[in-house]
């Protein structure tokens, strides 16, 4: 009799918790993968595909699934790699030659005398930063250009060039002092 009571009690508790967990999984259901969002938020959103994935979000998904390393984003460079390492709690990796740090930020401009108005670059631009219409001159909206260079290969007349982003006194950065690293390891 007492063993029956124990079994029944345990069964009842198990059923109760089962229901509770089931309810919670429905009630507090999280749509999508929050880690992917967090990774995506750290990526530079150039959508350039230099990481070998089709854009920043696919790369974020690949990192979340453990398919890709955190050191494959050239536009993000070391800063993004360190931020990813921090977020995911993995060891920082050196940027390999294939995905080397880009020395400076660039954007593109269209030589408007040569442009024939084919719209191919407009179709290639992932952020709609090119303005123009068929047989009309095209132009880059500089403030929107991310410097992904995806518009360059489709251009049939090679009239799109890369130029460095102009550094203003406002956006200028102090260099790291080159007095050698005299700092002991923190901690």
């Amino acid at each position, binding site marked *: 009799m007492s063993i029956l009571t124990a079994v029944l009690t345990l069964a009842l508790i198990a059923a109760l918790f089962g229901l509770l967990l089931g309810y919670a999984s429905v009630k507090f259901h999280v749509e999508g993968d929050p880690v992917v969002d967090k990774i995506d938020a750290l990526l530079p*959103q150039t*959508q350039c595909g230099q990481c070998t994935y089709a854009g920043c979000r696919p790369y974020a998904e690949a990192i979340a699934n453990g398919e890709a390393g955190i050191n494959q984003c050239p536009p993000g460079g070391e800063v993004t790699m360190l931020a990813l390492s921090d977020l995911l709690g993995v060891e920082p990796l050196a940027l390999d030659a294939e995905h080397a740090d880009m020395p400076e930020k660039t954007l593109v401009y269209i030589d408007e005398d040569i442009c024939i108005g084919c719209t191919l670059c407009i179709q290639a631009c992932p952020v709609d930063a090119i303005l123009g219409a068929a047989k009309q001159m095209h132009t880059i909206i500089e403030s*929107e250009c991310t410097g992904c260079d995806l518009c360059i290969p489709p251009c049939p007349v090679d009239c799109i060039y890369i130029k460095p982003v102009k550094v203003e006194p406002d956006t*200028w950065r102090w260099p790291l*002092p080159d007095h050698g690293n*005299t700092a002991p390891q*923190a901690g």
Partner: protein
Amino acid sequence: MSLNSRHLWHFHGGLKLPSNKAISTSKPITKALLPKRLVIPVRQHIGEAGKLQVEVGDYVLKGQVLTRASSYVSAPIHAPSSGKVVEIDELPAPHPSALNTLSVVIETDGEDKWIDLTPLNHPNTKSPTELRQLIRQAGIVGLGGATFPTAVKVNVGPQAEIETLIINGAECEPSISCDDMLMRSYAREVVSGCGLIQYIVSAKHCLIAVEDNKPEAIAALHAIITEKALHTIEVVAIPTIYPTGGEKQLIKVLTHKEVPSDGFPSDIGVLVQNVGTAVAVHKAIRLGEPLISRIVTITGEGVLQPQNMEALIGTSMSELIEQSGGYHKDAAKLIMGGPMMGFTLQTDHLPITKGCNCLLVENTAEQTAEAMPCIRCGACATACPAQLLPQQLYWHASSKNFDQVQDYHLFDCIECGCCNYVCPSQIPLVQYYRFAKTEIWNMERDRIKSDHARIRHDFRQERLDREKKERDEKLRKKKELLAKKKLADAAAKESDGKTTEIDPKKAAIEAAMQRVKEKKAAQQTEKTDATSATESSDEQNTQK
């Protein structure tokens, strides 16, 4: 109230430094000669650059607006003298980056002819808002060096109640003496400006804080205040400790209050303005004159006749140094600002800007001593007036741990250079903090840009999907329509087939065959061979 009755407090850290001010205070302020060419950078303040109002070839009068403020945190610039605008281009400006910035170049005509000025004799008849507007139109920015637009700073908002207005005449940095000389020569204007700012922010009382190593300035101000019997304005002599002229440090010394880390002095009922700014406010409101000149200290062992000069904004530094006796033969380094916080300039062919308080020429070249490893002595933490931990900041900044460096309150660092000065290993600590600050700002800009790009990318993706869906939908509808038509046609055929010809094509083929048949039949009648005729007709029948 007597000068020494006020109780004063101390801020953490700080240094007693040799002042080196006497060499530039022996002569009264000299007015610089009117230069032939003035180069006025469009942006000389914190905030957005103004919108250009002149074109190349325009003739401008002294005090005429060259740009108008483009947003709330912005300031206009004015023509410092009359003449012709000969160039508007990216030109070198005094900035640690040595980058060019958009500047207006005026070739002066020597007449120095003013625009029509509208002096205001009774400012108290105007509302504070109207006076603030005058300050804004005059292009006044903080002249202590921060160059934050004054009109924005004195707009403390309806919630904040300003108890104390502090006029900062501490001038704690060694070598610089422009505020000292200004207070000695323009004490009346300083006091007038104090009164105006006090009225604008409705401050209960006003303290003019001057370091006790400037007795002449204190006496001059005190004389004016006694003469005018002003009861709410008081001159306070404060101990000479660097950097007591820092805003937060000065507030601490005078009121014992501390400004919250991410707050403003107005949060604790205090507003701080530089003495030079007070004079500029006086000129703007009482005389109607915009900010077109300032007092610059030309000093250092590398200059033959150190002095203070009143120079028009846009005057070339080389001209001022020439008028101060020129360079010493051993002159090696030109610094804008003081020895603690200034930065080295690569050339003297740069214009004086609103924030340029001092040109310091040193005979010793750039310090080349190799930095030694940190020995964790902690001298920097003792000296830090912001109560930070410079060692921790240094470690994290040099290893690019930008999150940690902010956890140690990097942005409370005022870059006063005390830690540099005391470091026995000669580590350029402030450079590391500046590096970290600009890196963090850059990351923030990148983040904003990437968020923007993400939104645009997502929107484009959504648009492409929608377009594809719409296209598919259209195609599907077209197909449906076609299928329907076919069905309808077929139905029509069925119903029509009983009465008329089924299909015109078939009818044509049949008609053609009929004709062939007839032809062949005609041939047959000509031929005598009957069997072949029957065979061929059989053939035709089977073909049918």
